[in-house]
């Protein structure tokens, strides 16, 4: 089971690849170098879209988790979507940290600084790595889904802290350029276009990967259910009795 039909997924895959190639062309050649940071600023076209897509991915995880916890909308679809999106969030957060580190070295002179924005982002990364580990802890599917949904909502508290850290504390990291209270970003036309193109390309990449990751989540869940049914069958056959399934303890481990 996938989120998109196969034809749409294929078109999306081609569009994603094309948009990433265009992003590389604009980011590396067409956009002018920055007046102060020179070419090092070109890493912004990967760093900033990665960070925004990580927010989006964790937002989707939090929303899906809330929908799973709410009895009226409870469905395994939300749990699978939350898990799939969280893994992508970790991927994009890792990319944000890596690109930020590569950008920081020529501009700040250090690979890493104990700065509020950097530390809260690293905390976000490890919170969701923990969430992914929690999803792997063997447990009945419903219990696992509930505890993971709660963990995802708790972890999401760090997202606004990351975003506003540059306003709340004095940081080495620059303050917001685009999402300011007045929303009037002073960015050169081609640079602004490249930045927004990067956001578009990474959004397409996120949707493309989410569709695939959701399929994997569904397959693994089906496999768990089959293994559970098989284990119950074997236990019942072995005992020669008709023990109720509730007495057989088999986890949803992978």
């Amino acid at each position, binding site marked *: 089971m996938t989120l998109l039909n196969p034809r749409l997924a294929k078109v999306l895959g081609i569009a994603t690849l094309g948009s990433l190639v265009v992003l590389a062309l604009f980011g590396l050649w067409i956009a002018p170098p920055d007046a102060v940071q020179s070419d*090092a600023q070109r890493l912004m076209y990967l760093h900033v879209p990665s960070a925004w897509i990580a927010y989006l991915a964790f937002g989707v995880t939090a929303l899906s988790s809330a929908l799973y916890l709410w009895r009226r909308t409870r469905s395994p679809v939300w749990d699978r979507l939350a898990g799939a999106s969280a893994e992508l969030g970790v*991927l994009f957060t890792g990319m944000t940290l*890596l690109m930020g580190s590569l950008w920081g070295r020529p501009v700040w002179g250090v690979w890493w600084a104990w700065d509020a924005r950097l530390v809260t982002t690293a905390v976000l990364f490890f919170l969701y790595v923990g969430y992914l580990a929690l999803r792997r802890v063997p447990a009945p599917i419903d219990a696992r889904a509930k505890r993971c949904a709660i963990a995802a909502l708790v972890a999401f508290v760090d997202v606004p802290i990351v975003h506003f850290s540059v306003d709340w504390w004095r940081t080495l990291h620059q303050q917001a350029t685009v999402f300011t209270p007045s929303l009037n970003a002073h960015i050169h036309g081609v640079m602004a276009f490249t930045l927004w193109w990067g956001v578009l390309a990474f959004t397409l990449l996120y949707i493309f990967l989410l569709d695939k990751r959701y399929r994997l989540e569904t397959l693994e869940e089906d496999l768990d259910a089959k293994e559970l049914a098989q284990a119950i069958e074997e236990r019942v056959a072995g005992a020669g009795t008709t023990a109720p399934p509730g007495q057989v303890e088999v986890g949803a481990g992978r």
Partner: protein
Amino acid sequence: MKFAGYVIGGYSVAGAAFLLYWLRLNARIRHAERLDRDA
């Protein structure tokens, strides 16, 4: 280009990371499909 190592290195690492993740995801899907069929 100034800081070419950082910039080209950054774009290369990002491209490689996404490509590896996509390939690994496909391998995990194929593995799960095979187990699902055999189960």
